[in-house]
């Protein structure tokens, strides 16, 4: 890992994000919506951070996965990744550079949610910790899809259904017992529970275990895909 290379990738990625509306909107839409709903909509009887936790959980299932997959797949499709690898950028440096970039951007979004939700102290730590774990899981799934896909179209055909499952399952499980009993094994649902209890209760060990196992599975899948399809 050379910091010079990671820095160059971040700089390029940031400029590209500002010009790539499809990716840019992924990062800001839900935090903006969360802030908006928090301040504009007040419904009697709803828990205080109802919209914040709901949108934050959706954000976890959506933004890291979609942006990571589409960045990688586009670089493969347009052969820009090949040029990087042929300029002495190591595949690991590239993946780490882009992965860390998406992670940090998503955590900036998470910070917006946390700020809007007014979390402080241990509650803030739990909120951001749950977001970080969820973002990591989504990001690894997105990286696996992006590495697997030959082009953006192929990547989208995988991310769209998966992203819908991951981001809407937390909401659906609030309304349906049967869905909830299955959905509790999915990281985004457990992340939502952690967000809801942030500042009030401690972390549920079962939820933490589910998220950890999900992340582990995502790592295994990513490694498998990476070995099989390489990066060019």
């Amino acid at each position, binding site marked *: 890992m050379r910091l*010079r*290379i990671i820095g160059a990738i971040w*700089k390029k990625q940031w*400029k*590209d994000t500002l010009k790539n509306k499809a990716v840019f909107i992924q990062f800001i839409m839900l935090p903006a919506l969360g802030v908006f709903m928090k301040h504009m909509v007040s419904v009697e009887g709803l828990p205080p951070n109802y919209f914040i936790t709901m949108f934050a959980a959706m954000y976890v299932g959506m933004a890291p996965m979609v942006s990571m997959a589409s960045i990688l797949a586009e670089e493969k499709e347009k052969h*820009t990744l*090949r040029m990087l690898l*042929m300029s002495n950028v190591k595949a690991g440096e590239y993946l780490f550079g882009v992965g860390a970039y998406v992670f940090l951007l998503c955590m900036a979004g998470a910070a917006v949610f946390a700020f809007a939700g007014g979390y402080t102290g241990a509650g803030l730590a739990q909120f951001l910790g749950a977001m970080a774990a969820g973002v990591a899981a989504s990001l690894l799934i997105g990286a696996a899809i992006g590495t697997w896909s030959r082009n953006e179209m192929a990547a989208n055909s995988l991310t769209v259904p998966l992203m819908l499952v991951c981001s809407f399952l937390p909401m659906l499980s609030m309304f349906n017992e049967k869905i909830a009993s299955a959905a509790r094994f999915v990281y985004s649902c457990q992340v939502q529970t952690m967000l809801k209890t942030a500042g009030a209760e401690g972390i549920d060990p079962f939820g933490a275990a589910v998220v950890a196992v999900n992340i582990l599975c995502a790592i295994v899948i990513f490694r498998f895909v990476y070995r099989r399809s390489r990066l060019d």
Partner: protein
Amino acid sequence: MSGKAACIRAENISMSFGKKEVLQSVSLNIAEGEIFGLLGPSGAGKTSLLKILTGQLRQTGGRAFLFGLDTEGLPRDAYENIGLVLDNTGLYERLSCYDNLLLFAEIYGTGREKIMEALRRTGLAEAKKRPVSRLSKGMRQRLALARAILHEPGLLILDEPTAGLDPSTAAEIHALIREERERGAAVLLTTHNMEEATKLCGHVALLHLGNIVEYGSPAEVCRRYNHLNAICLTLKDGESITVENTPLSAKVVADYLQSGQIESIHSTEPNLETVFMELTGRGFAS
């Protein structure tokens, strides 16, 4: 061979995609500081050979060396001494010309002043802020070349650097390639433009059906096919007369010269194009 070290050495390279044999037993040597042209019609296997030579594709037989290093398991830092233009230019569409080069300048650790220099040399200084998505084909090609020369590599590998470009853009690219050679870089380029190869290359290899069917300087290759060895006289009335290039023809030519009927005289040495036609039984469809 000359005392110059080989930038690229290929020994009996063969390559198959499944049952399809693309390269049979290709050997070549590219010395430091020379412009080498790999010629052949579309589908001849030029791009595949370049990919093997740069370690992007694993050959099915034979060995290749880049700066003396085996291309199977090439250390990544060997790439720092190569400038590449591949058949798909691989530029970031949404980024500006400048930002595309900035990324690579930072990767190579070259100074920023090299970016403007490369843009100037490729005639893109004015367009430096323009996103790649708004560049013409010729400008993209020049930007790809600017990226390849940015870090002053010892070897340039250019896959069809002038394909589909207008003659004046192609001439600018030729000038740039010559400048790079003068700086000391070796250049390996592929083309199916025979005129380009004749003007530019010190050595050429003609690739046909997976084999190198001719190899040498363009003049040598042409001379070898000069079996007609004739002199062609074009008369002022438009008639053209071909006579053998032997002492016996001297009187015929002298008579025409004396009578003042001659418009032009030239030898019928073949050019690379006719050599290739003869070797392959077809021309270059571009």
